[in-house]
């Protein structure tokens, strides 16, 4: 017989040992960091009025990278004032001229890609291969894409016309600092808005490096302003009375607080919040490629991805086959120094996030799910967590319901298509989902019935500036990317 059934046959294991250890392969480009970063307001770096700074550390080794200014209420006022002053001339500028600035930013970012990639990795802990091959090129791609729109805005809303909103307040998360910045800035600027943006407290450096780049690009002062700080600064940016719109990417909890704060005002909002995506593998799926997609879905950026495929729903007939292959695949993931070019999983972004992951993993063990972690030696200093797989998970487990935002995958099984759909939708979130099957008609049905903003078919975590991204239910509202994303920064007339 050409193939032998799995059942009853002898099982042989593979050895993923130390026969061929790789030498360290660190990326050595200079990130060109400053010892201290001030606020970027009105095109200039200015000291915070309070004179206070906080430390930004490298999560890979807990070493201090730089001091970041802490913005208080009067600094945020200054930023909004600078933006309001810049808004008129910027909005009146012909689209093609605004496009020129965006093209310039995109090209400068490409020119300095290695420097930005190293800075991003040191600041956030993500593997250099991801910041080099994904974060920085995608950020540049967003600027390029929206630069192209700037002089074609009459086609954004066919039959209508669009106008900028004014000054928009934006708060972005720490998982993709530079990319989220590009997602927020590029459409806002292309449409003619001005921006006050607060990067995440633990990952402000690449935003401030981008501020230097905006100066190099000659962007008119005040069009973009960066205020840095923690949650309190974020609340000031989101709640500022001069904001015509606020855009937030972050946790559902904070998103809800912002919505409560802004309820009753006429300010527009875009919310891109949490997720607990189902990655659904049917028995006719190409197994190895599905395994690769599962790994990419949950271990990309240490699982610090709002659309991470953190729940694997696998068809019972192939569950054992998929899990065995998944474990083999996880065994060869390399965890460690994010600056090493061979690292697959870098550092967890912060001590606080590491504590959250540990707490939720402990709850998974306590509630009776079976945990698998490959043997791997983690660096002594810094925040690390091994890739983790839970089997025997049910819908009622906390690890199947709460967003972990770490390299932890919960595996559930299903028997029928309807059961898969029901389980996938049985969550307050609805950001993304994945379907793995050889059957085209099933993909079409699933993509209709899954309540998720993005449904990937036979792939996962694929992004493109032209493709709108956003959520259902408690994963938020509004879209980023594509024509739809631009519309969220426009007044329709």
């Amino acid at each position: 017989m050409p193939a032998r059934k799995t059942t009853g046959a002898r099982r042989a294991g593979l050895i993923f040992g130390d026969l061929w250890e790789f030498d360290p392969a660190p990326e050595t480009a200079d990130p060109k960091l400053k010892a201290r970063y001030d606020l970027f307001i009105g095109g200039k770096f200015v000291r915070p009025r309070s004179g206070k700074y906080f430390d930004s550390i490298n999560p890979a080794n807990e070493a201090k990278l730089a001091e970041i200014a802490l913005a208080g209420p009067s600094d945020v006022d200054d930023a909004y004032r600078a933006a309001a002053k810049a808004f008129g001339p910027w909005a009146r500028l012909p689209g093609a001229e605004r496009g020129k600035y965006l093209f310039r930013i995109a090209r400068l970012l490409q020119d300095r890609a290695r420097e930005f990639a190293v800075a991003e990795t040191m600041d956030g802990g993500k593997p250099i291969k991801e910041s080099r091959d994904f974060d920085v090129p995608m950020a540049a791609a967003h600027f390029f894409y929206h630069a192209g729109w700037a002089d074609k805005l009459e086609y954004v809303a066919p039959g209508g016309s669009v106008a900028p909103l004014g000054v928009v307040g934006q708060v972005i998360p720490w998982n993709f600092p530079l990319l989220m910045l590009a997602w927020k800035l590029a459409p806002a600027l292309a449409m003619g808005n001005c921006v006050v943006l607060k990067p995440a407290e633990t990952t402000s450096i690449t935003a401030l490096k981008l501020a230097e780049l905006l100066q190099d690009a000659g962007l008119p002062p005040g069009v973009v302003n960066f205020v840095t700080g923690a949650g309190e600064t974020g609340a000031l940016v989101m709640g500022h009375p001069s904001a015509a719109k606020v855009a937030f990417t972050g946790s559902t909890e904070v998103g809800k607080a912002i919505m409560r704060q802004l309820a009753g005002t006429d300010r527009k909002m875009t919310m891109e919040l949490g997720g607990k995506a189902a990655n659904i593998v049917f028995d006719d799926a190409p197994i190895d490629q599905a395994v690769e997609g599962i790994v990419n879905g949950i271990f990309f950026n240490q699982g610090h991805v709002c659309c991470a495929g953190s729940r694997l729903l696998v068809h019972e007939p192939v569950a054992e086959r998929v899990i065995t292959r998944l474990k083999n695949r996880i065994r060869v993931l390399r965890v460690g120094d994010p600056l090493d070019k061979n690292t697959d999983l870098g550092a967890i972004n912060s001590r606080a996030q590491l504590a959250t992951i540990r707490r939720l993993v402990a709850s998974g063990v306590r509630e009776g799910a079976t945990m698998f972690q490959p043997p791997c030696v983690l660096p002594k200093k810094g925040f690390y967590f091994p890739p983790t797989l839970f089997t025997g998970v049910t819908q009622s487990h906390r690890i199947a319901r709460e967003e972990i935002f770490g390299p932890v995958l919960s595996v559930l099984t299903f028997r029928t298509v309807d059961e898969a759909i029901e389980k996938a939708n049985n969550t307050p979130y609805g950001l993304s989902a994945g379907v793995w099957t050889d059957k085209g008609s099933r993909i079409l049905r699933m993509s209709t019935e899954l309540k998720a903003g993005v449904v990937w078919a036979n792939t996962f975590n694929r992004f493109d500036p032209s493709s709108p991204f956003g959520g259902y239910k408690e994963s938020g509202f509004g879209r980023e990317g594509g024509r739809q994303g631009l519309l969220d920064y426009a007044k329709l007339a």
Partner: protein
Amino acid sequence: MLPRKSLAAHARLLDEIGAVDQVGVEERVAKFTTRSIKKAAKLWGLRMAVSMTDLTTLEGKDTPGKIESLCTKAIRPHDDPSIPHVAAVCVYPSMVRHAKSCVGASGVKVASVATAFPSGQTHYRTRLAEVRGAVADGADEVDMVINRGAFLSGDFARVQDEISGVVEACGPAALKVILEVSELETFDSIRAASFLAMGVLRPGDFIKTSTGKTTLNATLGNNQVMIEAIRDFYMDTGIAIGMKPAGGIRTAKQALQFLIAVKETLGDAWLTPKRYRFGASSLLNDLVRQSERERTGAYQAPYYFSEAAESY
């Protein structure tokens, strides 16, 4: 039993062994090319690749003199004694006896292509006779081609029966089954043909990508599909089959990428010439050159490395 000439044969076989998604395979193998292998790890990989090389000459103009030169190079690829000998020399059947006397007791094996290489388009009995002849002349290994015509017409049973016959004709010689991937075209077919072959092979036999005589030869993609098939077969049956990508691997960098694929897919037990080979000729000097570069820190001119098979 496999159905003879059934239209559904392909579908039934795929149903049993599972499908392959081309886009996904290509994404997976792209990750191997981003691995950065430095210093001691690079040297280890380069030497391993040398020891896995089947140094090949398969030309109409091969002469005993050429074979002699090939064998000498195979035994001692470079002046540096720390560079191991290659795994085997691969020649046409008419050259087996001579090659055997050239390699002597060096440890280098003699592999012979047989079964009307590269097309396989002659009578089955003639093909078997060729295999027996090569083995009688002393071939340690036989590289056969599968009947692609039968495979593409859906006659899987015939493909498998013929391989089975060649296994028998090989006797003690190891067998490498060439799928000629460029003629099978799809990853699904490559996986199916891999399983057809493995179903009748013995532990220590190999499956091999290509003859090197068509336009497309070994790629990381088809190598991946085949080593995943080997892994699945091993996990289900405990029978370890070897792999030999052949043709198109000319640089040390490529060879290291193939070895990374092996390390991350099949694991350490396949990082040995007993289970993994490179069918190549010009690759050898690049491996040697890169390992000299690692040792001395500088690239040396090509004329510092003896030519054996590639340029004349």
